[in-house]
C-alpha cells in the first residue's frame, strides 16, 4: 500500500515539474494501481474516466485531483474509447454513474 501511494506521489510530482519546466519531457505514466493487478486493465481505464467526471462535477475540471484522473485515463484508455464515452456523456447515454 505504501509503495503504491509512493508511486502516485512521484507521478504527481513529476507532472508538476513537467508543466513548470515547459516543454521538457518527463518519462512518467499512470502508476501501478493495486485495485487492478491483473492483465485485464479495462476497468482501470474505465474507473479513472468515471472518477474524472465525478471529480469535475464536484470540484471542477481544473482541480489538481481531477487533472490527475484525466492524466491516468488518457494514458490508459485508447483514444477511440474516450471519444466514444465523451460522446455518450454529452448525449446522456453513458452507462456509468457520474
Amino acid at each position, binding site marked *: 500500500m505504501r509503495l503504491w501511494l509512493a*508511486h502516485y506521489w512521484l507521478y504527481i510530482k513529476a507532472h508538476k515539474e*513537467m508543466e513548470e519546466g515547459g*516543454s521538457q*519531457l518527463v*518519462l*512518467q*505514466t*499512470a*502508476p*501501478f494501481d493495486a485495485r487492478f493487478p*491483473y*492483465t*485485464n*486493465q*479495462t476497468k*482501470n*481505464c474505465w474507473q479513472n474516466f468515471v472518477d474524472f467526471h465525478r471529480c469535475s462535477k464536484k470540484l471542477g475540471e481544473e482541480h489538481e485531483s481531477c487533472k490527475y484522473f484525466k492524466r491516468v485515463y*488518457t*494514458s*490508459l*484508455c*485508447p*483514444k*477511440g474509447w474516450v471519444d466514444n464515452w465523451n460522446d455518450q456523456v454529452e448525449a446522456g447515454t453513458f452507462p456509468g454513474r457520474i
Partner: protein
Amino acid sequence: MLNNFFYIVNVCGKKDIPESWHLGFQEAAAPVMEEIVFFHDQIMFLLVIIVIVVLWLLVEALNGKYYDRDLIDGTLLEIVWTLIPAVILVFIASPSLKLLYLMDEVVSPALTIKAIGHQWYWSYEYSDYQEETLEFDSYMVPTSDLNSGDFRLLEVDNRLVVPINTHVRILVTGADVLHSFAVPALGIKTDAVPGRLNQAGIFIKRPGTFYGQCSEICGANHSFMPIVIEAVSLDRYINWMLSLSNE
C-alpha cells in the same frame, strides 16, 4: 558440410529476424525472453533423457529377449513408474508457473504505449505527455515497394519506437475482431480483444529492430499486418518524441 547443416536446421537464432528453416528462438532482447529460453533448455534436458529411456525400453521390449509368462502384476513397478513422471512434471510445472507470473508482472512502467489491432494494420498511441495523443497507423510495406535488404512481409511504414533499458507498459486492444500482438525476440504475445485492454510489460536490453506478426487469425490479411519495434536509446526516444510533438 556441417555449416550447411546448421544453415538448414537453424536451431540457434543468430539474428533478430526469422530465418529460413528457423527452428529455435530468435536472440532474446528482453529478460523475459531470456527466462523463456532458459525454461525451454531445461525442458529439453528432461526431454532428451525421457526420449532416450523410452526408446531404449521400446527396443528392449521389441527384442523379445526378456519376457515372463507368469508375470501378472507388479505393484512396486506401477508405483515407481507413476511417481517418476509425477516428479518430473513437478520439475516442469514449478518453473513454468514461476515464469507465468513473472511475465504478468508490470512494475512501475515509465511509459505506456497502446497497440490497437485493426483489419488489417496496427495503430499505436502514445498519450503520456501532452493533451493531444500521438497516434499513428502502421501498415505493411508491400513487396513491390521493398528496398534491398528489407524483409518481405515484415517491414512497416511507421515503426513503433521504444526506449531501451526502460520499463514499458503495452496495452493491447482490438478495434474490430480478435488480433494478437506478438514479438518473439521480446517474449510477448498478448491477445487484442475488442472492448478489453490487455496489459503486457516489456523491458528491452539492447538497441535493435524487432519483428513480430499478428498471432490471432483475424481475416483475409491476417498474415500482412506485421509489427516492427525499433528499440533506441532513451535520449533518441525523447528526441524523436519531442520532434513529433513540435510538429
